[in-house]
């Protein structure tokens, strides 16, 4: 789960990482109230989960209430790369002497934590890496050893963080690492990490991605889930407890297992179609799950055909078939279904489907994934 900047900063603050005083606003008037609290000059920042806000005009300086009204008015509702701005974050403007970069992630190849640190911040780290890879210090951290202050200091020296900022940045790294580990982040990034003319270091931005598997030990994450930007289909799928990702194509996909679902998308694409979604109904495929899945697919106006791809491992073919027949009876479908049922007891399952009395215009069955994909794509054209 990706956090908005303001949420990331609030999360950082829990781990004593210095951030600017500020508040979030949904309206122009709220923005003015937050600006008065933060004290002028303030920065009005669009809250979207996409890079390039500044260039798009989503970050503006304001020195009085009228300017806040002007900028907040322009930014709220603005479309930044397909993301509509619903909130602005208002914070006291910081004086900047220097800009650095710091982040922690999991390096899956090394199976260890990875610190990336650079004295060149404020720009995309990928650009720094492309121009001068030596400008980024990469340090692996064994998760059961952690990051002692002395190690953090050495990393700062290696990254050529200037002497005047060294203690501050090293301290910040230790705190950010604690936020990353105890806070169950997939990513904790500060860019830029600034040095003020007064000598303090400070997180001017916050990019935090949380590991949703750890939600059980973070009840405080519920408020973040409430602001997650899901489209209507994704919202419905979440309510039904389904693994769903909305896409732009015309073939609705239902499969059991994440790998098979991904594979189904690929095969639809190979035969010239495009998937409307990724939907994994998991190991079981009973009537309740199938009904929920069909309801979600049905809510997508772009769907012209539905491809149900089930491989019975533990779940037996006849159970799957019964589930589908039951679900088709419950949901008034807007698009025809093509089903590929294979694996354990697939023949019995296909027999149940064939004898259920569902007209061919609503449901047809194909023995292989490729043939079913072709049929579904033809129906979607």
């Amino acid at each position, binding site marked *: 789960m990706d956090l908005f900047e303001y949420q990331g900063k609030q999360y950082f603050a829990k781990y004593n990482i210095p951030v600017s005083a500020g508040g979030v606003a949904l309206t122009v008037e709220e923005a003015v109230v937050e600006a008065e609290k933060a004290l002028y000059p303030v920065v009005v920042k669009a809250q979207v989960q996409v890079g390039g806000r500044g260039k798009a005009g989503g970050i503006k300086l304001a020195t009085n209430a009228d300017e806040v009204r002007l900028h907040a008015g322009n930014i709220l509702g603005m479309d930044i790369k397909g993301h509509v701005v619903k909130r602005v974050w208002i914070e006291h403007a910081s004086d900047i002497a220097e800009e650095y970069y710091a982040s922690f992630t999991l390096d*899956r190849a090394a199976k260890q934590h990875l610190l990336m640190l650079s004295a060149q911040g404020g720009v995309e780290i990928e650009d720094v890496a492309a121009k001068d890879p030596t400008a980024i210090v990469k340090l692996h951290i064994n998760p059961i050893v952690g990051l002692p202050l002395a190690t953090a200091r050495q990393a700062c020296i290696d990254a050529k963080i200037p002497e005047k900022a060294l203690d501050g940045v090293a301290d910040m790294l230790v705190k950010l690492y604690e936020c990353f580990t105890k806070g169950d982040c997939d990513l904790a990034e500060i860019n830029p990490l600034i040095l003020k003319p007064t000598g303090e270091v400070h997180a001017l931005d916050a990019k935090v991605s949380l590991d949703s598997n750890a939600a059980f030990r973070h009840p405080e994450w519920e408020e973040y889930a409430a602001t997650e930007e899901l489209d209507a289909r994704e919202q419905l799928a979440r309510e039904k407890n389904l693994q769903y990702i909305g896409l732009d194509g015309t073939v609705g996909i239902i499969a059991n297992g994440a*790998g098979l*679902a991904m594979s189904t998308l*690929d095969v639809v694409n190979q035969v010239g179609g495009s998937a409307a979604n990724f939907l994994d109904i998991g190991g079981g495929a009973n009537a309740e799950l199938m009904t929920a899945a069909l309801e979600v697919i049905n809510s997508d106006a772009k769907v012209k055909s539905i491809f149900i791809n089930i491989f019975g491992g533990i779940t037996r073919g006849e159970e799957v078939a019964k589930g589908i027949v039951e679900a088709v009876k419950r949901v008034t479908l807007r698009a025809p279904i093509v089903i590929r049922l294979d*694996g354990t007891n697939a023949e019995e399952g296909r027999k149940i489907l064939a004898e259920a009395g569902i007209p061919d215009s609503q449901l047809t069955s194909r023995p292989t994934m*490729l043939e079913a994909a072709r049929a579904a794509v033809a129906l979607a054209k």
Partner: protein
Amino acid sequence: MAIFVDQHTKVIVQGLTGGQGRFHGLRNKAYGTQVVGGVTPGKAGQDVEGIPVFDSVEDAVKATGATASFIAVPPKAAPAAILEAARAGIGFVVCITEGIPAQDEARVFATLQRDFPATRLLGPNCPGIISPGKCNIGITAGEIAQLPTASGPNVGIVSRSGTLTYQALYELKQQGIGVSTCVGIGGDPVPGTSFVDCLAEFQADPETHAIIMIGEIGGSAEEEAAEFITNHVTKPMSAYIAGVTAPAGKKMGHAGAIVSGGKGTAQGKMDALRMAGVKIGLNPTEAGSLMAEIVNNLR
């Protein structure tokens, strides 16, 4: 021969009295696996259809001589369960639990590496392992696995995805091709056992003559496998990578399946494997057909 587990493997089930543990533990036993005990704290002295239950892994190992453990407990309890098994001297731990936080997985892996190097963890979030006709630990339906033949050629399977593992088993069964061992390494960010670990074992296993590998988007495990294949694997291979059309920045069901910053794409993985001499199928069936050709050439 087979890799990691065979007819001599004695298995305990941690969480045998729970819903998942009972269901799959009994299925594994019915398949012919030596399921010798279960562990549920506070339930020592009970039994599950004749399988004795113990309070701790240590007690179970002492009483039964178990060498492998099947962990089917919820995500909160799984990290401690894995380490308990390692501490009790279990050499092979299969953890099917889905939803363990990545931070916990990283700590467990580092702890195993430092304190229990003799213990191998398979998973978490994996379907398990089956050496057909000998041992089945996990959730694979044993009947879809073709038995290996003494003369071969037999195929080893290693996969990151559960349903695609079954699909691979099924494709080989349709073609009448025997399977030496089928390993599901799981789709999580920090798997205990990697493609490379399995490829090394398959390469050394005289009963395995060819290998199918099923990967998916995210991370760099397939690229590392490609490098290993180039340098160490002489047995013929086919592979399939799921997620060619997966959009960037979205987790495709598995916590590990994500394309980020242009890294971990299916195309990059397929290219790397092709360079290593692996035949690439564009869908699971094609990978199965390619394997059938390979096997026919070996016959």
